[in-house]
């Protein structure tokens, strides 16, 4: 009993320091996060949208998201390790949460394993929607730490086997196009990143991931949209 009381106190104390806990329903099923030795190779193109990290190490039980002023209350978070071994999906309720850099609690069972990843090897993709499972309305910028420097950059991580660029309009309405650079292998869940200075992005920006593909001797572009909202 004493141990149980101590444990409850510990968890409450840990979570209550401004951290937002996940929706209980999203972590009821133990498969909300998986660690796999044999890695299923299913997954999408958009994998992460984060601030460029100032520190290499991560604290796996917490992360931060730049929450904008929004009426949408479902924050849907996906985590992916570069080697594909770890992946997670977890939802948070933003009711009563004001805009700002907010801290979220990640109740992972694999903290020991996750600590071995550098901050750019375990990436976060956070999105806002009316309900998780539906198409995201906005993607938000995440981070493993809460420091935002004036010169900060946003990094988009994608899984793309062809030449890929990121196009968007800056705050002045000028079109910009930046190339994705290849990451060092092994890269299973994501293999390219593109760094965008945050001051080029308005509070609402439409990033377009453009894959250059060739079909029947014609060049075509596959476009994946990442509408980004920030404060």
């Amino acid at each position, binding site marked *: 009993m004493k141990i149980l009381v101590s444990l409850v106190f510990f968890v409450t104390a840990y979570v209550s320091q401004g951290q937002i806990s996940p929706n209980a329903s999203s972590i009821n099923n133990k498969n909300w996060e998986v660690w796999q030795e044999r890695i299923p190779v299913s997954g*999408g193109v958009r994998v992460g949208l984060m601030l460029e990290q100032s520190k290499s190490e991560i604290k796996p039980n917490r992360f931060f998201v730049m929450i904008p002023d929004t009426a949408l209350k479902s924050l849907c978070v996906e985590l992916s390790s570069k080697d594909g071994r770890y992946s997670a999906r977890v939802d948070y309720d933003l009711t009563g949460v004001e805009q700002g850099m907010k801290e979220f609690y990640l109740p992972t069972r694999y903290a020991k394993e996750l600590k071995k990843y550098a901050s750019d090897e375990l990436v976060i993709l956070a999105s806002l929607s009316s309900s998780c499972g539906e198409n995201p309305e906005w993607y938000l910028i995440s981070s493993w730490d809460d420091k935002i420097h004036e010169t900060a950059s946003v990094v988009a991580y994608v899984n793309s*086997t062809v030449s890929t660029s990121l196009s968007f309009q800056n705050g002045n309405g000028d079109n910009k196009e930046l190339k994705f650079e290849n990451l060092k292998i092994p890269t299973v869940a994501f293999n390219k990143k593109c760094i965008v200075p945050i001051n080029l992005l308005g509070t609402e920006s439409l990033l377009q991931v453009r894959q250059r593909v060739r079909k029947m001797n014609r060049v075509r572009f*596959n476009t994946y949209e990442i509408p980004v909202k920030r404060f």
Partner: protein
Amino acid sequence: MRNSQILILLSLFFSASLWSQETVFVKGDENGNGFSRSRYGKCYVITPNHVVASSGSIDIINKKRLKLKGRLIESFEPDLAVLEIEDSEGFNCEEWELNTNTATALDNSSTGFIDYKDEFGTTNYFHVNITSMDDSSISIIPQNSDTFFSKGMSGSSLYVNYKGDKVLMGMLISLENDLKTGYVYQIDDIFRVLEPFFKVEENSTEIVQDPLCKENNTGDYCFTNTRDQKLVIQLNHYRNSKEKNPHGYKTFTINPNESKCVYGLLAKPMLYYITTQEAFYDDSKFRGYEYLLKAPNRSKFLLEKGELKIQTCQTNTYIIK
């Protein structure tokens, strides 16, 4: 390298197997691939279960960028799922069987290629070396050191070129712990696992003895819709010819406003199953569905209110009420 790429392209476009199965993009909870296979005229997609296991909605995209809705019908151990394409109009979907050269081709191949589609229907492929195999799986690694397996490739097809033919060997499922080696389910094992679902029953005397079937039996044709919500048509005669239909079978749409003569000749009495809806006699639901009839006698199909008329092109008309 260039020659082998040309060879792959030639296989992709001119192989006899081209019309048998098509690799498609599957967008479920995860993104992956799968391949199509028909059963009783309905189109299905076989994909790894982990791509669609917890999906609310599933989209299937083919090489023509046709986007169709899919529905998870059944999952099979260890990691396979069968999806039904809800309205497969315009989608080329064939009832195909294992290539008879599968085992020989695998025994004699040390290389192959992975064929996968992206979300826009673009076909991608790369060469692989076959490093090992057992009874049910094949291990492969990319030939090019710059190429690697990545997320989104689950369900991709592994092919080998065997005597100029493109032979399907299996489906990519996962990546081994070394992050280099791909784990592929062998196609004959996939067939074994999915056999209960895809098995087409033929020549069953049990159906002939079905009381309802007997009651409605009008001589040449025997109908029932009581078994597994399928319409069963038994064609008992093969009048006017001893030849087999060279086209195998035809797919057609039964439409209340039109009729078609379906030309085909039966070599022997056989049973055919036609998938239908539960409310078979509800013509509003019946409208527009695709049905498959294998090599019938020269017949005419008419759908009028509450009745399906099947009429031979020569003489008789049979009505199902």
